[in-house]
């Protein structure tokens, strides 16, 4: 898994690529927690380069979203592909998160 962040005017765009599995998912949660500690409150998570996600990944996404919600923050997603899209659909994450095709649309919608 690789995590890269880019500050935009109204949100932090975090691009996650590779695999989010039981081994790597905790890193994602830690990164988001660190950004929140630095004062970030709005996140666009770009998953266009994410090839694989398991329930461990969903777990760290939901934990991050709960933490943000408590602080009136926001987290939305962009660029979901094949397998990741399917897992978001099956697990109902498609219904509880805002999902956009691109970062630009996400930044407008946030």
């Amino acid at each position, binding site marked *: 898994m690789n995590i890269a962040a880019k500050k935009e005017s109204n949100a932090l765009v975090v691009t996650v690529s590779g695999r989010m*599995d039981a081994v790597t998912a905790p890193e994602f949660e830690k990164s988001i927690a660190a950004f929140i500690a630095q004062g970030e409150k709005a996140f666009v998570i770009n998953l266009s380069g994410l090839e694989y996600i398991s329930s461990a990944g969903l777990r760290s996404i939901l*934990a991050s979203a709960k933490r943000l919600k408590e602080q009136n923050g926001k987290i939305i997603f962009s660029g979901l592909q094949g397998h990741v899209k399917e897992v978001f659909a099956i*697990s109902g994450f498609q219904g509880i998160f805002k999902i956009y095709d691109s970062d630009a649309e996400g930044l407008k919608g946030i």
Partner: protein
Amino acid sequence: MSSTGRVKMPAVLENLQAITECVTAAASSAGFSARRIGDMELALEEAVTNVFKYANPGNPGEIEVACASGGGKFSIEIRDSGQEFDITKLPDPDLSQDISERPIGGLGAYLIKKIADDVNYRRLSGFNVLTLVFNLEIKK
């Protein structure tokens, strides 16, 4: 002709990749698409991490994963000697709850059931034996 694979290892997270690679390599040689192999990988990860996390509270046990292709199907059998537990009996999670209400976790078994074409559990002389079946043709 059929292809089979089998691994037996300590049931610890460090072995997730080794177990996964053996199974996906066999599935790939059986002719499944990369996409469907990703599905198998997911169901397998969910099943084996549950064994790592819950089957042997206190001290890690062993896990044995066997896979075989043949007759248009590919089956993965996960065997552990931990406490008896049948994931097929778990109720489905409530997917309508929003972010604050929704409990963290509880999606692993559900993903397995949704993704595999068939899931079968047996308790066999002290072992949990979970079998996941994938049809060679794309599901549905």
